[in-house]
């Protein structure tokens, strides 16, 4: 119970800080829209090609927005020297990590709330409930992995370079399964249910693994 309370306190603190400073989400929103506009000019989009091209563009925009969002999650704490103060409270590392990951995930969800309508508008694809579910499920796994690596590299000078190198290879399962689910949801061939089940399996696996690893990453 205390773990949940601590995690929610950290998430609330991150969201309130973001709401007041408006440092990250507006910039991410602009970034994903610009990425879609550029892709829209770069590809020959018509009603036939859109379901094949749009999922790739969606995941590219999401992956790069995620790298920025998760990178900031711990970098800001280190810059403010506030992470040590949080750790010195004796709060469980898993709770601190869960709170940070949830906060970063919710910021990415806000970014997705801009991304998906913009995708529908620019690529003429339909945004279904299944598509939204696939993106949200991928966001969970990407968030826990992204935050774990962000915590690992936050103290390093080359963190902007190292975070993608560490996170991207482990995000591939989410991009593959998520890509299949989104393509199927947009009407292309593929088994939507199987891809969604795979995303849930990956989420469970990585949420458990990262919670266990958080202690070693945050405390030492």
């Amino acid at each position, binding site marked *: 119970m*205390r773990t949940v*309370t*601590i995690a929610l*306190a*950290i998430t609330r*603190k991150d969201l*309130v*800080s973001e709401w*007041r*400073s408006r440092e990250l989400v507006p910039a991410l929103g602009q970034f994903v829209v610009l990425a879609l506009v550029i892709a829209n000019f770069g590809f020959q989009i018509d009603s036939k090609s859109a379901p094949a091209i749009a999922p790739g563009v969606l995941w590219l925009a999401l992956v790069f927005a995620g790298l920025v969002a998760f990178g900031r999650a711990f970098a800001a704490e280190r810059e*403010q*020297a*506030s*992470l*040590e*103060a*949080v*750790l*010195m*409270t*004796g*709060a*469980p590392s898993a709770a601190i990590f869960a709170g940070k990951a949830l906060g970063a995930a919710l910021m990415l969800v806000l970014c997705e709330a801009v991304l998906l309508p913009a995708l529908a508008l620019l690529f003429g694809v339909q945004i279904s409930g299944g598509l939204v579910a696939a993106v949200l499920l991928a966001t969970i796994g990407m968030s826990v992995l992204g935050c774990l690596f962000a915590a690992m590299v936050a103290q390093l000078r080359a963190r902007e370079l190292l975070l993608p190198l560490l996170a991207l290879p482990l995000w591939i399962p989410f991009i593959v399964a998520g890509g299949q689910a989104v393509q199927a949801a947009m009407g292309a061939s593929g088994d939507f249910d199987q891809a969604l089940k795979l995303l849930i399996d990956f989420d469970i696996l990585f949420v458990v693994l990262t919670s266990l690893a958080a202690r070693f990453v945050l405390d*030492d």
Partner: protein
Amino acid sequence: MSAIVAERIAHWFGSEPALDAIDLVVDRGDHVAILGENGAGKTTLLRILATAMRPSSGKLEIMGLDAFRERRRLRGRIGYLAHAPGLYPALTAAENLEFFCDLRGADRARVPEALDMVGLTPAARRRAGELSRGMQQRLAIARAMLHDPLLLIFDEPDASLDADGAELLAQVMKGRTTVLATHDQALATRLCQRLVHLRKGRLLGAGSRLRIVQ
């Protein structure tokens, strides 16, 4: 009974020695000041005593507990003031303290009392990022006191504090074992019974205030 027993604590940053075989015993209720030049190892020693970092070698007991195995438990009894205030600039002074109450499982009702103790009641609704450096330091001191700690580890607590700062520190240290680092020998003499000198990671002298002043 001793509050802190440090035996042959040593620490290296890469191949650079920061602390060299430090032995230190602090009795309960003692106020100890660590003095030394920049780079003497004061912050490293305080971070180790606060359980914020592990030394490369040595043994450390705090309140009878192994500081490395029981550090989570000990953190509930230590009030640590780091070199940087480590506050959230977008949150108000009161929100900063409420957040740390939530993390420590402390009652949020302690917040007004803590703000009053450091003289920040009028600034309770101001964002931490808008406060002066001295006010931020006062807020960080209030945060360190939220859980009514038995042991205080303060790294340059007088940094940016005004003339009333020494009075505030004397008030919060009253009845608590305290180890603080400072460059201000006059302040150390005023607040502490024992002064410990560090030079290049080595302990030079640890004695009573009177002996050193004489």
